[in-house]
């Protein structure tokens, strides 16, 4: 039904009020990223910590990684991380958009 959408800043999210739970997208994902939430009976996935990155924070997994192996980077400029851009909002950075919309 098109419950999965790309947010204006490039993050793929699922509309929980719209998803029917048919799980066709689960079958279509080669990385096993999607699952049916047992309570809502709708499909859920990693939101790239949308609630955090929209506030200028990095994702929780990058934050907690003990060796810093996980980095949020722009694919076109992998040397410079996108962490710690402060409260000005990471998503407004042009690098972010290209990192997330790299398929476009």
């Amino acid at each position, binding site marked *: *039904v*098109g419950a999965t959408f790309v947010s204006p800043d490039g993050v793929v999210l699922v509309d929980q009020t*719209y*998803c*029917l*739970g*048919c*799980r*066709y997208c*689960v*079958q*279509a*994902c*080669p*990385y*096993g*990223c*999607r*699952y*049916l939430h047992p309570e*809502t*009976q*709708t*499909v859920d996935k990693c939101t790239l910590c949308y609630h955090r990155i929209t506030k200028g924070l990095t994702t929780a997994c990058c934050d907690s990684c003990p060796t810093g192996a996980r980095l949020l980077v722009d694919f076109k400029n992998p040397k410079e991380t996108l962490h710690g851009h402060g409260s000005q909002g990471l998503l407004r950075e042009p690098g972010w958009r290209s990192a997330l919309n790299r398929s476009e």
Partner: protein
Amino acid sequence: MMIPGVDGFMYPNEVELQWSVLIVLYPYITGLVAGAFILASLERVFNVAAVRPTYRLALLTALAFLLVAPLPLQLHLGHPERSLEMYLTPHTSSAMAMFGFVYLWYLTVVLLLEIWLEYRAEIVGLAQSTKGLKRWIYRALTLGSYNISPEARRMDDKVGYAVTVIGVPSAFLLHGYVGFIFGSVKANPWWSTPLMPVVFLFSAMVSGIAGVMVLYVVCMKLRKTPIDMRCLDTIARYLFYTFVIDFTLEMLDLIHRTYESDESFRSLDFMVHTRLLFSHVVLQIFLGTLVPLALLAANQLWRFSEARRKAMYMTAGALTLIGIFAMRWNVVIGGQLFSKSFLGYTSYKMQLASREGLVAAILLMLLPFVIFFVLVKLLPPWQGGKAHEA
């Protein structure tokens, strides 16, 4: 910690199967619809007069199964109440959503219209001769049209013919599309092949023809009427032809996969030799294909007595229906038993009395027969022996 039934590495969402036995029923039931309709159209479009006795039977079978086809999907959904959104906000890139339109087209434009035109004269007759509730049902079924003059009937016949001509590609589309839903999942190497819609289509024809053949014999036995052997022989011959094509396509797919041996091959090959050994090799290929093919082929080569022919056809038909069910099982369940990382395997644990369990599946498989029974009572398929003029 090891989870029972799981070997090697699985992605977390792969341990439990997303699509259950109900999703096995969905292509199985839809296939029976498409196959039954194509058998009916043999008489109408391709003028195979010998199968006339099964024309109406095939149409009613198709309708009974088509009405049930979306139910397993509905039961499977996390939010069935939202399913109509597919029609309200169609999402054209989703193969699943577009199926809704294919289904609706087939149900309303093809099947209901054709049945109505075929039965119209009798419905009008019954609306005038019956009493009480039945009279009201038939009056509603006439849709307000009581004109059954020879001229009007000729028109019905013409339109009915046109509907069948549109109906054949529509039936192809209906089941080809079910194959496409699986064949287009690029992430799953067991499903993703352009041959999938074609294989589904031919297996649908095989199962539908076998289904109507078995149903015809059973109905005749129950009604204690003699079986038209010319009709039965002809159906069996067409079953043999379509089966040969179907088997060839499936083997072609197998040879292609084996020869190509891409990165997924070892994983899939291991699965077929272990977890799918019984349902794939024994049930689908041997009992469900080679044995019925041999029985049908023997009938093309030698002439057997009538009783023996009946027994052979019935055995072949029943085995075919089991074999095609096994094929759907192997596609749907088999496609979820291996990890997309190709490093592990899981197993399917069918539940018993849950919403997607065995009991629900059995009830859903019985429901078409209940609908069929009602339809036969309402619209008797036994009269109307006259052939179409078309």
